């Protein structure tokens, strides 16, 4: 029995009387792709942001590789090998695609002072180029990220999360607003990235089909609570989940 990479226990985030995240617990195993689904406003993103130190959880415990990370900042989490993407597009619009990728990992190499004297790519050029090829961004590699199409920006956004070789990546709606062809591409890329080095993913996604195909296990969130956790097949068979989704 291997230990989980990420273990969340009794996570609560309340705003006044409203509990946006209400006593959520789950664990992500090494090499696992863990999906989170649920209707709008069910607290998925709030849960994400609480786990990632973006907002302070009201209660609960979060462990990374068995160590408590509950009150760490996003910066500290990044340094410990946790990558993420955001629900909305978050690329650096005025930098080129290649620079976006380089800046995504440069702080993981060398010392602060050393970086002042380092080469402009901080030795990350080859790695950035590899990802650019893997994500089919070669043609736009030297264009400003802000000038690209939405789908391409989305790819850059996802690629950035992988630049620093994180052990755990949390993706918030990687397929939102992306055309169906690209959705398949993203699924394939994520599956590839998962196979190498046994990386673990947590993915929030509305596209149920995408989640069903890609994820090893799925958590369904409704009104801040984890309604069910299980394999895609189990979730498909769960009557409560269907009710929640159909709004009965």
């Amino acid at each position, binding site marked *: 029995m291997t230990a989980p990479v990420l273990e969340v226990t009794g996570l609560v985030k309340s705003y006044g009387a409203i509990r946006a995240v209400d006593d959520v617990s789950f664990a992500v195993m090494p090499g696992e792709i863990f999906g989170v689904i649920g209707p709008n406003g069910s607290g998925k993103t709030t849960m994400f942001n609480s786990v990632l130190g973006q907002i302070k959880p009201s209660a609960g415990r979060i462990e990374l590789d068995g160590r408590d990370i509950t009150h760490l900042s996003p910066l500290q989490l990044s*340094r410990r090998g946790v990558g993420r993407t955001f629900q909305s597009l978050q690329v650096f619009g005025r930098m080129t695609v290649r620079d976006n990728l380089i800046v995504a990992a440069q702080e993981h190499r060398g010392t602060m002072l050393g970086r002042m004297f380092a080469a*402009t790519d901080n030795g990350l050029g080859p790695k950035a180029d590899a990802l650019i090829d893997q994500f089919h961004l070669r043609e736009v590699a030297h264009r400003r990220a802000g000038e690209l199409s939405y789908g391409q920006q989305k790819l850059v956004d996802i690629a950035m999360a992988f630049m620093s070789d994180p052990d755990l990546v949390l993706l918030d709606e990687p397929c939102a607003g992306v055309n169906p062809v690209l959705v398949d591409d993203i699924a394939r890329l994520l599956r590839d990235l998962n196979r190498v080095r046994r990386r673990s993913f947590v993915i929030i996604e509305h596209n149920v089909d995408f989640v069903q195909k890609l994820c090893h296990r799925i958590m369904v969130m409704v009104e801040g609570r984890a309604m069910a956790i299980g394999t895609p097949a189990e979730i498909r068979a769960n009557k409560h989940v269907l009710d929640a989704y159909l709004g009965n």
Partner: protein
Amino acid sequence: MTRQPRWLIGMVGMAALLVLPPFLRSYGLYLLSYWLVFVIATMGLNLTVGYAGQASLGHAAFLGIGAYSVAIVMKAGCSFWLGLPLSAVLCFVVGLGLGFPALRVQSIYLAFATLGFSVAALLVMRYEEWLTGGTSGINDVGRPSLFGLDLGGNLAYYYFVLAVAVVVAALLRGVLRSPWGKAFTALRDNPIRAESLGIDVRAYTLLSFAIGASCAGIAGALLASLVQFVDPTPFGLGVSFTMYLMVVVGGSGTFFGPALGAVVGVLLPEWLRFAQGWYLTAFGVAVIVLMLWLPGGLLSLPDRLKARAIAASRPRT
């Protein structure tokens, strides 16, 4: 495509700055030196405001701290060469301090925090007479000599300021090309995303203030020696505003922006003097018109022209 012409223009400009000054009279030489001093200061502010995206309306204070450091050090009988690095270091440290409000508040609040700092620094210059000479200032600030070469003459001092400007520009270029430069840009574009990628937003915010401040400190040191007199008047809020104006008008976040911005801020009022009593009104109007025409600053003009050329070459649909 646009890179080459821009650098070419830069080289031609540089050559002009090297070759033409011996033919200028003292007023022209002095103005050029004055302009260069503000180019140095504005390059620093451009790092803070343009690259790292931090609102700062208190930069004149650093110019003042630099100027007073050199004046006080030289009055105490020490060399200019001690004063110059001291100015830079002192401003670096104070700049780090000014960065702290930026960790807590942003945009307009930060602008007012820095503006308030400018006011406070001015009060210290005016009231701490034992240190700064108060409102009567410090007179007879000398000019340095280098390896037995006297830099006291207007032409010699001009070349000295030019050399410092080139060195500071090269150093800044180095910093901006290093990973730091990307980190600053990331900080400006999206601090939250930057932090999630492991960029130490706190450290880079403070650094952007500190580096910007130390450039202004160096500029201040040169200014003290250029005017050979220091009093609080040139370090008021108005100058902080003007420096911010120079950054934006030149093109914030562009490398050559400060040089052009300082032309507008320092030389344009002088050129407008033919308008007599109305020259500052003309200057204000010119700034408004310039902003309306090129909201991205003067250096957005090539991009604008390029965009227009592309639009024109496209067949109409």
